[in-house]
Structure formats: structure tokens, C-alpha cells
């Protein structure tokens, strides 16, 4: 069983606390002039997303979480689960709706996602930060209005709804920032 000493703590390290996997967000070292040193960490529960504080005596060890991230290609959904493939090995993984969260509404088949595996199973799936998607439904475009002010809702081919400028038409392809859920630009063919 791998362990990490508090000396190795840093943002991004995955550790086990109370039997759950956590990601270290922040690590602060504090020590009185003479006496015990401590590491105060802010950690995110990788299953629930909850953020908590923990305090360790410096020099203590904690179990490493069997968690790693890898890029996988999205294959399809059977209506319940989502299937991903490791491009190099063709190994397939099945992600639950809980692991997918909001991700499903941004991805198309063959998109490459960042999948976090915990004990071999997908724990969370992140869409590509930027993606290009076709508009399947929106009000007709207002020609010449490039002010960008106001905007209107547009439904994308994956089901997501984003606000787009008034001049955008149905059938056009746009670039979207998936982390903010926002329109970035029009994509010219």
C-alpha cells in the first residue's frame, strides 16, 4: 500500500481519508518557533465534491488513493451508462450518470475526455475545455446585429442550451467553453 508523508503534500495529490478518496487543493505548513509542526490541508472528496479541512502533524503518513486521470475517447451511451475507451489499449470503461454529472451535455461520440479512475472505475469525467457544436434550434438570426448585446438561447446538438449573439443562425457551428457553459465564437466552415 503506497503512502505519502506530509512532506510530499501538494495540490493535486490524491489521498485516502476515512476510507474515501480526496484530492488535496491546498497545503499549508505551520509551526511554532519551537514545537510541533503541522500541515493544514484543504481537500475535496472525489466522490461527493465536498471540501473539508484537515490538520496533520508534520511527518505523519497517509494512504495514497488509487486514483489517476487519463484521456479516453467517448464511444456511446446505452441510455443509462456512458462508454469510454483508452485509445492506446482499446480498454473500455463504463461511467455512471453520477460520474458523468453535467459532462454528458457537452460531448459527442469520439470526443476525448479526461476520466478520473478510482480503483479502476470512472469517478468523474471532464469534457474537453473547448468544443465545437452545431446549433439545432434557435430564433432566426438578425442580420447585421453584431453588437453581441442581449443574445438569445440556442440548443446544441448535444442537448446543451447556451446564450448566443443575435446574428447566429440555426445550423451554424459555434465554439463553446464547457467550463463556463458559454459561447466563445462562430466557427466558419
Amino acid at each position, binding site marked *: 500500500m503506497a503512502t505519502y508523508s*506530509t*512532506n510530499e503534500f501538494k495540490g493535486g495529490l490524491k489521498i485516502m481519508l476515512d476510507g474515501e478518496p480526496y484530492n488535496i487543493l491546498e497545503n*499549508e*505548513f*505551520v*509551526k*511554532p*518557533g*519551537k*514545537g*510541533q*509542526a*503541522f500541515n*493544514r490541508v484543504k481537500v475535496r472528496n472525489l466522490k461527493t465534491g465536498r471540501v*473539508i*479541512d*484537515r*490538520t*496533520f*502533524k*508534520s*511527518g505523519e503518513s497517509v494512504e495514497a488513493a488509487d486514483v489517476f486521470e487519463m484521456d479516453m475517447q467517448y464511444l456511446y451511451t446505452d441510455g443509462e451508462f456512458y462508454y469510454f475507451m483508452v485509445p492506446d489499449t482499446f480498454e473500455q470503461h463504463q461511467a455512471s450518470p453520477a460520474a458523468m454529472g453535467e459532462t454528458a451535455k457537452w460531448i459527442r461520440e469520439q470526443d476525448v475526455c479526461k476520466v478520473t479512475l478510482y480503483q479502476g472505475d470512472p469517478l468523474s469525467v471532464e469534457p474537453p475545455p473547448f468544443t465545437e457544436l452545431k446549433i439545432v434550434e434557435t430564433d432566426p438570426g438578425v442580420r447585421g446585429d453584431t453588437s453581441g448585446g442581449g443574445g438569445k438561447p440556442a440548443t446544441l446538438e448535444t442537448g446543451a442550451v447556451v446564450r448566443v449573439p443575435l446574428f447566429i443562425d440555426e445550423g451554424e457551428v459555434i465554439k463553446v467553453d464547457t467550463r463556463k457553459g458559454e459561447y466563445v465564437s462562430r466557427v466558419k466552415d
Partner: protein
Amino acid sequence: MESLRQRARLLRQVRAFFDRRGVLEVNTPLLSRWGIPDPAIPSIPAEAGDGRRWLHTSPEFPMKRLLASGSGDIYQICPVFRDGEQGRWHNPEFTLLEWYRLGMEEQALAMEVCELVAELAREAEGPLANLESEPAVISYREAYRRHAGVDPFEDETGAIAEAAIRVTGTGGPLDWGRNDWLDLLGSLKVYPALGHGRPAVVTEFPADQAALARVHPGSPPTAARFEVVLGGVEIANGFHELSDPEEQLRRFRVETEERQGQGLPPVPWDPQLISALEAGLPDCAGVALGLDRLIALVLGCDGIGPVTAFPWDRA
């Protein structure tokens, strides 16, 4: 680069301060055959051709040997090493300013520290340029009462642990000792509240936190030890120095046992310090000051990074 220029200027000022007072600058070895067994001070070993040595964690022992051989007042500016201590205000290699004054007691030395602090703050022309040199003196007990709501001498360990858990959100396991909880409260609650507008001097530590200080008899007995806090950051720790070789030997042995108990690798204590104390250490007070911290604080930096040329990760 500008903060490194400022740092060089302030170092000159430190030397001028001691020069005016007739304190002699000395240099003692960084690598010694002997270390310090205190379990809270982690030493870094180094392998020399003729055996293991230790990078010093402070120049205290060889400086006391110089004092015992008649050096008179001395100071030293040197890098020291403490394994694993890395953070905003910590770097495993840092610069210590350590000095000893004959015939002084800890209160007088604490005042001298504050004079140096105020002088550097003025010279730096930073956010602390108008710092008062007259410190706010507060006992360890009063500091904890006022800023953490606990009595470090009287309260049950359980009550101190509860207070610490309230402050930190979640604490550590309940098998931590009394001093662990006090240290945690001190680091997160008490010290951050001290040393604003003027330096704070914390005095009258519990006797079991005496380290290398004499103990004032009394009820409860307290250590002849002080710390100076500036802007919530501890910058200096001083003692009316312990000169009793038997008591020093007893503390080394206790610390060695504590180390063993915590499963830490042994570090041999310095028998030459005991010989020096036997030969006779003149009555003196000594203090170690974290120079990187002081320089960072008077320049208005939020950590020692900007005044360290290459921090640990890039060293």
C-alpha cells in the same frame, strides 16, 4: 532582484548595529559530528569521507563553546537547515541571526531585539517604517487566554483540544498530547493576533517548553524564554541561557528518549557542549532570529519567497 538589493542593504545595517555595540561577528561550522536530539527540530545528515555529519539547525552549541572560552559578546549570520520545513514562512535552508550578550537577562535582550527590528523597519522604508520599538510584552498564559480563550497552565487537555478543533474545523486524532494542541492553537490563533503596530514579546513559557532556557522557580515554574512576534509571524526566540551541565545533560537524555518514542532516527547530542558548560558558560542571554522573515516583513512581503534567491524547490 530589487528585494535582493534591499536584503543586502539590510544585512549591512544588521552588521552596523552590532558593530556599534561592540559585538564580534563569528563563524562556526555548518557541518558537525553532533546534532540536536530535540524531536521537533529535524536535522539533515550529510555523508563525509570520515563518517556522518549533521548540517546544523542553529549555531548555538559552537557559539556557547566560544563564549565558554572567553569570546565575549558574539553574533553570527549563517544559513541553517531544518528538514521538511517548507511553507510561506519556512524554507528548509534559511538564514539565522544569532547573538549572545554577557550579563544580560532575557528581558533586556528582548528589548535589544526590538530595537534592531525597529531600526531595520525604518531603514527598509516599507509598510512598517513607523514601527514602535517599544514592544507589547505579554505572558504566554495571557496570550493564550486572550486570543484562544484557554488557560495553557490550568485547563484540562480535553478543553484545549476542543478549543483547537473549534478553530481548525477538524483537528487531528484525540491521542495528540497537550503541547500538540497548544502548538496548533498558537500557530493558528494566538500568534497571528500578535505583533501588529509594534513587536510583541511573549514571555514566561511553560517549564516543559524551556528548550535551552533556565527555569524560574515559582508556581507554576516558567522558562526564562521569550519569543518576538511581528505582524503575526514569530521572528525570534531567546533564552536566559541554561549553564548547568547536569540539567543540560538531563534534557538531552529526555529528548533522545522522546525521539525514540516517536520512532525518529537518533541524532547524537554534542558532548563538547557539556564540557563547555562544565568549564563554565558566562552568565548570558542569547537569541536566534529568522533573518529572512524579518527582512520579508519590513519590506512588506507576504512570505520569505521574494527575499530568498532560490527557494528549496529551485535550489
